Each structure stands twice: as structure tokens, then as C-alpha cells.
């Protein structure tokens, strides 16, 4: 087993990995950028080294500097987390060249699955359905038009080199094609340094359902069941649950079998996720395979009782998986709510500032995977994910009521967060009934955003009293009136971040 693992990441996932390492008796090394000096992952690690200045390109993406630290601190393995360099095959290869183990699949697997078209080709060979579309990059408008005619509008244009909604366009009519292709290609080039684009059928009310798979070097490949990830904003998941309230046992087994087949076909090692789109008629299509830990992995841990990070470390060290397919007997229901530094009621405008106070929710069935602390400065340099709240219950109703209870206890002061917005999603009829697709949040978003504060007499009285009390305590200067705060509206234009 490894003695010392360097975690090439920050925030909640770095903390998450360090916790498991500590339980395994493995020393941990954190890396940090200058503004992250007092972030929780630095404080909790055994060792910590500065890797550069604030911008990711100067620090968490600084391959050369990270390699130097790996050598200097004598780490015998690297865990990349998700995002940043986790799916960068050059980094994976460079790490392994220094004689350090890579906690993840082989460079070749990362490369194949990272190229969406190569992945589609590989998967087609296993006989699994993929979303109808092209298997080669589309370059001419003519080819695009022909493909679109063949599979039928609406279609999606997507970037071959990456995800996250970047370079993605929905096209409903032929006359939109030219303009959209051009925009998509320029956006893709900027984001991924790769302007190849391809076409996919646009599905009606699709569900984003993914299967967690695990493989060791001893020919064991196991499915750990599905996650329903259809509540998305900016093409990014915000709420996930398992089991999915949408699919039935038959489809569940079928997806698991296909995911295992795909995993076997690429000689996989470690934790991976096979993503599918499932339309309202139960037709399903392979979407992509993520060759690393997923943000939403905790819900699988809650229902299976398996520590996925521990298994990742063990199989990377050459051990067998601690479970076989028949040991995996999911129990109960788990929901994850991502806590972002953004205002859901103002089109997810990001929020920065100093966290002045935090009250975390606790109790039976409540898990926090946090990456923040009181006094911490939330900077504009990194992903706005502050942490994840996960609840477990015997059944969906219990875990959902527990989530609402826990979010109600959760208070982060100093910055705006997605907590109030997520509370409204969980209380919305479509979530309560488990009837939602990837389009649902867009549909109900305006409804939630326009939601005026409940005209509860007592709340309003409370607010008045609070304001007076606060005014009184401050013994304030006269407050400038009429100088109304500017409320600029924010509109999203997609993420630069990798799909997670």
C-alpha cells in the first residue's frame, strides 16, 4: 500500500480524499495556490506546498511545478480528484514516468474516453446504442445538413474535445445551422484548443442517468448502480439522487450490463462513470464515460456503504476490489445537493467574499462533504462549489424530507449561496413527485426566480425588527437614501469547466 499520496486538487474533493487517506493510515500532501493558503484542504493535510499564484493555469494546472513537488515530497501516488488535471493524459503519463502511481485508469483509456468521437466508436463496437449522429467531425455545412435531415431536427452540435455545455448548440431548423456551427466551433476552439464539432440527435425530455463502475487488475468489473442527474443548470448537475425515480429494474439492469461491457472493452482500472441519456420512451443512448471520480459519488457510497476513494486507492496499488457484483446490494435512497457560491434567483450569478459564519446541518442520515471554513475568502478564480450536502433515508420520501430539513438548518453568511434556490427545487411538485427531466429546471427556473418572498406577516415583522435591532446596534451614520443598489441581471453563457 502507498505511504504518501499527493492530491492534485483543492476544495471539497481534496478534503474528501484526505479524509479517506487518514483513515487508511496514508500520509497526505496538499498543493495550494497563493489565495488558498488557509483553505481547508491545506489545513487538514499532513503536508502542504504552494504551487503558484491564483489563476489555475499558474497553479493547479501547472504540470511542471506539480511534478517537482511530487518528487520533492517523495509521494508514491497521485490522486487527481475531478476537474483540473484528472482527465489530462499528459499529466497522468508524466506522473507515472517519475515512478509515481496514478490513481486512475491507464493513459490510453483516459485518452480514448476523453475524445468523444473515439469513445462513440469504441462503444458502437460493443453494440451499445449511442445518440444518433456523426462519428466523424463535421466540417461542411452540407454534411451537417444531410446528417440533420437523416436523424431529424432538433439536433445538437457538440464539441469533440470537451464538455460542460461549451461549444454546444441546439438547432431546431435548418436555417439556424450555419451560424450555430460557426459559433460552436469558435467556442470549442477557445475552450479546448480543438475546434472539431459533431452532431447528435436532440432528445425529448431526456434523463441524464449514469452508472458507477469499478474495475481492478484482477478481471473484476462491477456496477454500483445508477445515479439520476437530470436536475441541471448551465448544463451542470446541481442535484443528484439514487436510485432514479424514473427508471425501472429492467432498465437498471440493462444499463448496468452495458456499462460493465463498455468498461471491460477499454481494459478499465479504478472508478469510472458511464453516462446515458434516457428519453421519455425508455430509449437509452451512451453519452460518454468519465475516467475519474464523479462529484456526485457520495450518493452511491451512501446506498452501498462502500468508500469509493478507498477502493480507488486499493486497486491503484494492485489490490483486488473488496467486493464482487453480488456483494453490491444498495439499500435506501440518497440525494446530493451541491452548494454553490451563486444566487439561483439571479440567474446563478457567482458570489465572492469572506465567509463570516457557517452553521452546518447534522444528525441522522446527513453527510457533509465541505471545502470551506469560517473566515475563508471565496475568490473568483475557481469553481464556485463550496461543498455537498448528502442525505440518506430508508426511502425517497425520507431522504427528501431530510434534505429539506437539513438545508433549512444550513446557513452560510458573507456570500450568497444556492441553498435557498435548491430548497425551492426540493419543495417543487416536479421534484417531490420524482417527475423531472434535464429540461425541467429550465422550465421551472423562471417560476422559482420570480417567486416573491412569501407574504407571511410574521416573517415581515421579524425582518423589520431585525433591521431595527441591527440599525440600533450599529449606532449608525445616517443611511444614504435613494442610492438604490444596482440590480444587474446576469445571463449565463456556459461554463469553461470540464463536465463533471
Amino acid at each position, binding site marked *: 500500500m502507498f505511504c504518501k499520496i499527493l492530491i492534485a486538487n483543492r476544495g471539497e474533493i481534496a478534503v474528501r480524499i484526505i479524509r479517506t487517506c487518514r483513515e487508511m493510515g496514508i500520509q497526505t500532501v496538499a498543493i495550494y495556490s497563493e489565495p488558498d493558503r488557509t483553505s481547508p484542504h491545506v489545513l487538514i493535510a499532513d503536508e502542504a506546498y504552494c504551487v503558484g499564484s491564483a489563476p489555475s493555469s499558474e497553479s493547479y494546472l501547472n504540470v511542471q511545478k506539480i511534478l517537482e513537488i511530487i518528487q520533492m515530497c517523495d509521494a508514491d501516488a497521485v490522486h487527481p480528484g475531478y476537474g483540473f488535471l484528472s482527465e489530462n493524459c499528459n499529466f497522468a503519463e508524466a506522473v507515472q514516468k517519475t515512478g509515481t502511481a496514478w490513481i486512475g485508469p491507464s493513459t490510453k483509456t483516459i485518452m480514448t474516453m476523453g475524445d468523444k468521437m473515439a469513445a462513440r466508436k469504441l462503444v458502437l463496437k460493443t453494440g451499445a446504442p449511442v445518440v444518433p449522429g456523426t462519428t466523424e467531425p463535421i466540417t461542411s455545412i452540407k454534411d451537417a445538413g444531410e446528417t440533420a435531415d437523416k436523424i431529424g431536427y432538433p439536433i445538437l452540435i457538440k464539441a469533440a474535445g470537451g464538455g460542460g455545455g461549451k461549444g454546444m448548440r441546439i438547432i431546431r431548423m435548418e436555417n439556424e445551422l450555419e451560424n450555430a456551427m460557426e459559433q460552436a466551433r469558435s467556442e470549442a476552439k477557445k475552450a479546448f484548443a480543438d475546434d472539431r464539432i459533431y452532431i447528435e440527435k436532440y432528445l425529448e425530455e431526456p434523463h441524464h442517468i449514469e452508472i458507477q463502475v469499478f474495475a481492478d487488475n484482477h478481471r473484476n468489473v462491477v456496477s454500483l448502480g445508477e445515479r439520476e442527474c437530470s436536475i441541471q443548470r448551465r448544463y451542470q448537475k446541481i442535484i443528484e439522487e439514487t436510485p432514479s425515480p424514473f427508471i425501472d429494474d429492467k432498465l437498471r439492469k440493462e444499463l448496468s450490463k452495458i456499462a460493465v461491457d463498455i468498461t471491460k472493452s477499454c481494459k478499465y482500472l479504478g472508478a469510472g462513470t458511464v453516462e446515458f441519456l434516457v428519453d421519455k420512451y425508455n430509449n437509452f443512448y451512451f453519452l460518454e464515460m468519465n475516467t475519474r471520480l464523479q462529484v456526485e459519488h457520495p450518493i452511491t457510497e451512501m446506498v452501498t456503504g462502500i468508500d469509493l476513494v478507498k477502493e480507488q486507492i486499493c486497486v491503484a496499488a494492485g489490490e483486488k476490489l473488496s467486493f464482487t457484483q453480488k456483494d453490491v446490494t444498495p439499500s435506501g435512497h440518497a440525494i446530493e445537493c451541491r452548494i454553490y457560491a451563486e444566487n439561483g434567483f439571479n440567474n446563478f450569478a457567482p458570489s465572492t467574499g469572506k465567509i463570516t459564519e457557517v452553521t452546518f446541518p447534522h444528525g441522522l442520515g446527513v453527510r457533509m462533504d465541505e471545502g470551506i471554513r469560517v473566515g475563508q475568502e471565496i475568490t473568483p478564480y475557481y469553481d464556485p462549489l463550496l461543498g455537498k450536502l448528502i442525505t440518506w433515508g430508508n426511502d425517497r420520501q425520507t431522504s427528501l424530507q431530510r434534505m429539506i430539513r437539513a438545508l433549512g438548518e444550513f446557513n452560510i453568511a458573507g456570500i450568497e449561496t444556492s441553498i*435557498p434556490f435548491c430548497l425551492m427545487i426540493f419543495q417543487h411538485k416536479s421534484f417531490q413527485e420524482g417527475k423531472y427531466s434535464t429540461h425541467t429546471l429550465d422550465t421551472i427556473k423562471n417560476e422559482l426566480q420570480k417567486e416573491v418572498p412569501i407574504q407571511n406577516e410574521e416573517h415581515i415583522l421579524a425582518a423589520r425588527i431585525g433591521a431595527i435591532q441591527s440599525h440600533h446596534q450599529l449606532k449608525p451614520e445616517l443611511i444614504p437614501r*435613494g442610492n438604490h443598489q444596482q440590480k444587474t441581471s446576469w445571463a449565463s453563457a456556459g461554463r469553461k469547466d470540464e463536465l463533471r
Partner: protein
Amino acid sequence: MKFNTIIENISLEMKFSDSINQHLINNNDNVEIDCIQLSINAYSLLLNGKSHILTINKQIDGYDVTVDHHTYLVQVQDEVDVLLEKFGMQGNTSSHAGEIHALIPGLVSRLFVKPGDRVENGQGLLILEAMKMENEIDSPISGVVGKIYIKAGDKVEKGELIMEINN
């Protein structure tokens, strides 16, 4: 001491019975109120037995008060303010709706307008990159673009004036 509070244009006058302990009297229905500070910006309030936690953030035009995850903008005037207002001496009420400020620090990745352009309410003005997201900043009003204080590639600080829209 008397205070006047305004929420969404509804004004209510309230007075303290005692400024030393935490009890207030709301002069409409004379309820006893128990409000106690928990931390810099949090208060516990017992109101007719109901327990509320309030978090309060001072804004330039009042206080954002959050009660059970609902946020209200509350303006507070004390006796002196009320008196001044009666004599028509309230502060400057001219609006600066046409000033576009950066709500968070970030990088101006694209600029869609130039001085003299006619823009509509909701039209995109620029893209500000922060937290790995590209955020489109839209015009809050219809009008004509006036002075622009930044260019593409600039880093802006929170609150920095970006441009003016004249209507």
C-alpha cells in the same frame, strides 16, 4: 426610540420600550418581542413564541434581512430621519440605474457594445469571467451606451464602474 421601517414600500412605525434589554414593543399590537444577538450579523427572535433566526447584511440602501431563507430589503429610519424627511430634507434620491458596476471581480472576456450603441433592456453588454463561468451582463434599461471604462481582457474589481447607459 421610534423607528420607521419600509419593506416593499409598506411603511410601519415601531418603538422600543427599553433600549437596554432586548425587548421591543411593536406599537400596533403591543406584542412583547425578545430579540437577541447571536453573532455579528445573526439574531434570534422570539415573536409570539415563534422562534426565528435572522441574518442581517447592511446594504447601501438598507438591510437585507433573511428570515427562514426568505430575504427582505428593509429600510430603517429613526426619529431624526423621519423628522428630516418631514421637512423635505431626505437624501439624494436620483437613481443611477444606468451605471453598470461589476458585482464580482472577474475578467472581461468579451465586450459587445461601443459608445453610442443603442441597447435594449436585457441586451447583453459584455461577458465577465469568474469562477470558471462566463457571465453575460445585460443592460438593466433601454438606452444609449455612454462612456465605457474597461476593455476586453481587463480585470475588474468588485463594484468597479464598467460603463454608463443613458436613457
